[in-house]
């Protein structure tokens, strides 16, 4: 069976890619997508952990799955909200480029 470490490394890589995306992307929409990636990394981690917790790969602990489902739900709401705000930004300023979104600084 696939060891837990493998899942954890996958999750970590995915999380790092998401984090990189947040920092590297200039479009607000892509940034939000990168965050989604990070949340998925979390989900992978949770589910893998849940399945390995008794050391035999048995479905002994359901908490991980439950948490993952919650996270998926909340993330969906979060994206919806974020998109609404980004949309509003587009209406107000006709841009979603975060380089241009710095009226306020220092």
């Amino acid at each position, binding site marked *: 069976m696939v060891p837990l470490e493998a899942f954890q490394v996958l999750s970590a890589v995915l999380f790092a890619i998401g984090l990189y995306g947040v*920092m590297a992307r200039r479009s607000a929409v892509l940034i939000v997508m990168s965050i989604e990636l990070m949340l998925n990394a979390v989900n992978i981690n949770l589910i893998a952990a849940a399945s390995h917790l008794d050391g035999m790969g048995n479905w002994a602990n359901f908490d991980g799955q439950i948490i993952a489902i919650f996270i998926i739900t909340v993330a969906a709401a979060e994206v919806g909200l974020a998109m609404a705000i980004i949309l509003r930004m587009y209406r107000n300023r006709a841009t979603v480029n975060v380089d241009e979104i710095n009226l306020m600084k*220092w």
Partner: protein
Amino acid sequence: MEWAWLIPVLSFAAVPVIIVLGRFLTGKVSHRSAAALAIAAILGGFIVFWFVFAGFLAADTDTPGCETGVGTEALTCNYKLTWFEAGIPDALTDSFDRIHLEWGILVDPLTIAMLGLATFVALMVQIYSLGYMHGDPRLDWYYAFHALFIASMLTLVLADNFLLLYIAWELVGLCSYLLIGFWHERPEPREAAKKAFIVTRIGDVGLLVGILLLWSHVGSFSMLETFAAIEAGELSEGVVTISALLLFLGAMGKSAQFPFHVWLPDAMEGPTPVSALIHAATMVAAGVYLVARAFPIFSESQTALYIVASIGLITALGAATIALVATDLKRILAYSTISHLGLMMLSLGALGYTAAIFHLLAHGFAKALLFLGAGSVMHSTEELDVRKMGGLRKVMPITAILFSIGALSLGGIPILAGFWSKDEILIAVNKELPLIFIVLTLLTALLSALYMARAMFVVFYGKFAEQFEHVHDAPKTMSITMGLLAIFAIVFGLVALDLPGPFKGIGYFIFYHEGHGLEFVIWLAALSIVLAIAAFIYGYMAYARKSVNLEGARQRFALPLKVAEGKYYIDELYQWSIDRVVLSFSRFIAWIDRALVNDVGINGPADVTRLLGHGLRRHVTGYVYSYALAMALGLIGLAILWWIVST
């Protein structure tokens, strides 16, 4: 005798009354009441003085409070009252943990002599002022200051402890400041007053330090206890010498000894009666009095005595030369005062205790007379430059006669008071000090006679100066007081003789160690008489008859003359050092304070903080991805930190 404290207190009490009355009464009424109060107070003091004098003559060691003094066989009476205490009352550890201060009076011959001189001269001067200051708009203040002045002086001579002496000492300084600067509308008196106060204050620093130094070794401010401790050898010789010199520093300031003499000539800017009071009986006498009072300290230190004598001689000689070339009548008298104070110090340094006090008294009467005479001249002519005067005896005969008496007395013409006292000084100097001292002292005596002759002959004799045609002689208040002083200037010297009765002559009255009768060294007396008479004759020829031409001498001695006329440039030196050194230093410190201590030391950290804030704010760039970056870095930082901490 216990009531001696009344003498100053009467005058002290008059001060607030005069001031308050001055606020409520107006014009002449207030002036008259002020004068009346002040004169009544000092008159009361003068009367009490006679009771005290009589009481003292009658007292012996059985009288309460009286015993034989320290280091002298003279009777010393002491009465005191607690003022306040500070520190630990029970003084568990040692007496240095507390101070116990007292209002105390000490009555001994020295005090009696000073009391007599001060009350009498002050009384005369105050009466004289009635005429001289007539019509001054601030006469009430004048008399208030006068009363305060004389009260302080009397306290000074009565004080039984150094602290009280210092208090009175400072008050004397203050009053001299107020009186010299009485006509503060003109800049000169203002400056002179300030100068007098500050210069004497510098000496006072020494005095206070000396007093405190003595306290820190004796544990008491009481003079008698201090003297006893010194006699018992409780203090090391170094401490005695240093404290004696510190006390002398104070005396130098007040008695205008070189190099602190500069304030005295300038002090002539005050009203002339004030000059008379300061120079004859009060302020300048205080320094001599202090040295005499603390003589048990001085006499323990040969070094101190030597320095006192040297300073005295330098002062006496230097001032005499300046007096010879000065052109302002009052300044001639001022330098003469300095010179004679120098002689007194010299005498003290030569262990001539009696001679010094005797000369102090004799000089006091004569000098008061001379100043009042000069005041009379000035009052009438409104002129002080001797070069413009001449033959004034024609219009003011009384003043002329009285002034001449004073001048002759001070010049050392026999029978008159000045002769006797000067003679005693010469004897003391001859006995105790090297040859050079007596030579220079005799030279000083000669110069002294010469400048007195010059002043007297230039002003009152010789060719009459026509512009003073309509000048009148002094009013009655002035001439009577001068007359009384003149009597003293003539006859006071006779106390030097051995007299019958309880007062056996000054040598048995005021003395250190033990009393002595009249001493007379024929060759010295003869020499001094010859010198004095020669000086007056020469003066008559040169200044009244103009039969001696001085021009040749002037040209030959041009340089020394210039230096003497420039008062040895000591004033300039002081002025320079104050302007260029003290004030520059002060500005420098003020600049340091602003530029360094404040702008760098205080503002600096504030500015750095503000700059830090302005720099740091840049880290919030406004770009959302850099916020994410910061979070990521922070996160990594936290993880690393955690790792470091847990391993």
